[in-house]
């Protein structure tokens, strides 16, 4: 049995072991990797900075813990940009029960970064981070089940669709930010940002709230979904598209706010190199053994 045949019969656990070594090595000995700012990512920054100062941004974190390494950094940088621009954030989703909980932590982290003060009472309706305060600068209406119809209802009748309570079960009428909001539309909001991992996601929010509510929609997606959503971005239906942890990492670098987005880039880079090597090795085996198999 020659080298190519032995390589062809390689136990997949060896490949998994190499991936594991790469992941561990990049965590234990991180290498600083520059993340270039591409026009699409710059477009996401321009989208937030183009919204009127002091207006409201609706943030729909349609994701679950499985995709948090890619989308948590996006929520953090979008929230940092929003707070720096003086926007107020209303968090709420209709499809992923754990999304608002994940987003709440990131919005708090963003508030702490912007003010330079640690948050007191995090994860409660009494959270205060410097001069940014829950209920005044952001509100989390939580997960309201129902997918598209709920999104449509939020656009038409916000208080009914959210049952008038926030993530913590407190009345929305008790917060200065949410007491007068009647719809996720251009009367009460200036923008809609959706974090997407599937359905419901950006497309559903586009059809059910952004178009009827006349709101510009920005969309953050995991890297695998980038090409799918590029269709809507290229057509102008999304006003911004942020892709993967790389997009978040580029904004982190620009804002000098290093976080999970930048931290994962060297792992992504080495994993990409490994995949290229795997393809070359796989094809070496294929061409070297093809004739022998036929014989």
């Amino acid at each position, binding site marked *: 049995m020659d080298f190519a045949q032995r390589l062809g019969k390689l136990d*997949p656990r060896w490949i998994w072991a190499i991936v594991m070594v790469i992941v561990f090595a990049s965590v234990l000995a991180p290498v600083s990797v520059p993340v270039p700012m591409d026009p699409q990512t710059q477009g996401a920054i321009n989208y937030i900075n183009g919204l009127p100062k002091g207006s409201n941004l609706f943030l729909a974190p349609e994701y679950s813990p499985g995709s948090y390494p890619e989308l948590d950094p996006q929520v953090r940088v979008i929230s940092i940009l929003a707070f720096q621009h003086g926007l107020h954030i209303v968090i709420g989703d209709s499809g992923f029960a754990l999304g608002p909980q994940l987003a709440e932590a990131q919005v708090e982290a963003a508030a702490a970064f912007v003010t330079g003060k640690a948050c007191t009472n995090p994860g409660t309706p009494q959270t205060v981070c410097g001069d940014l305060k829950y209920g005044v600068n952001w509100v989390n209406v939580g997960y309201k089940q129902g997918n598209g119809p709920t999104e449509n209802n939020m656009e038409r009748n916000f208080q009914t669709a959210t049952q008038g309570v926030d993530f913590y079960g407190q009345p929305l009428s008790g917060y200065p930010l949410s007491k007068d909001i009647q719809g996720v539309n251009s009367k009460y909001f200036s923008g809609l940002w959706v974090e997407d991992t599937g359905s419901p996601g950006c497309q559903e929010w586009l059809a059910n709230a952004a178009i009827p509510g006349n709101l510009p929609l920005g969309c953050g997606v995991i890297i695998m979904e980038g090409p799918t959503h590029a269709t809507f971005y290229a057509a102008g239906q999304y006003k911004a598209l942020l892709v993967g942890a790389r997009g978040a990492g580029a904004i982190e670098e620009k804002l000098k706010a290093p976080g999970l987005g930048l931290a994962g880039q060297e792992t992504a880079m080495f994993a990409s190199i490994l995949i290229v090597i795997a393809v070359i090795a*796989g094809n070496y085996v294929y061409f070297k053994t093809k004739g022998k198999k036929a014989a």
Partner: protein
Amino acid sequence: MLITALAGLVVVVGEYFQFAQNMNVLTTFNTWFQVAQTVAFPIGLISLFLVHGANVQRKRQRWVLSLLLIVVTSIYLVVSLITGPRAGTAMDWVYQGYISPAGSTLYGIIAFVITSCTFRTFRFRSREATVLVVAALFILIAQSPLGGLLWSKWGTIGDWIVLVPSNAASRAIVLGAYLGGFATAIRVLLGIERAHIGGMAK
């Protein structure tokens, strides 16, 4: 079938007719949908307990996993009902300490599987396959910082591949899928398609 047709008609009328919009038909209907889906949650839970309870009772294959599911679900349900979604509670502890890491771990496994699969399946078997593999590798490198380090134009060309040729093909697929969806919706409304109520298409 009649319920489906009526529900579909209400949505169509509510969306496209001004008088129905003035009457808030769609808002009311959407609220009904939310209520119906809320009711579906406990029904799903009852169904889960019935199916897995029967597995345990009859000691079917892997009944221990069914028992584990029932125990974990029951504990999490009771804890969640008592404490609610607040930081620092037992529910939050279960979420932060188990659900979140478990979900991330499952997602992380993809990296191992993808690397292994590229070794086994990404072959230059034909001209078409070669174009596909080369484009995939190009985009992969463009999406990681490696592309920018190798060549400053790598990302720009990667974006062009995604936004122009890939986009054109993707748009055709999406349009085709939506046309198919539209045709199916018409068939459901007219009662021709009955698979959703356990029947056969005419």
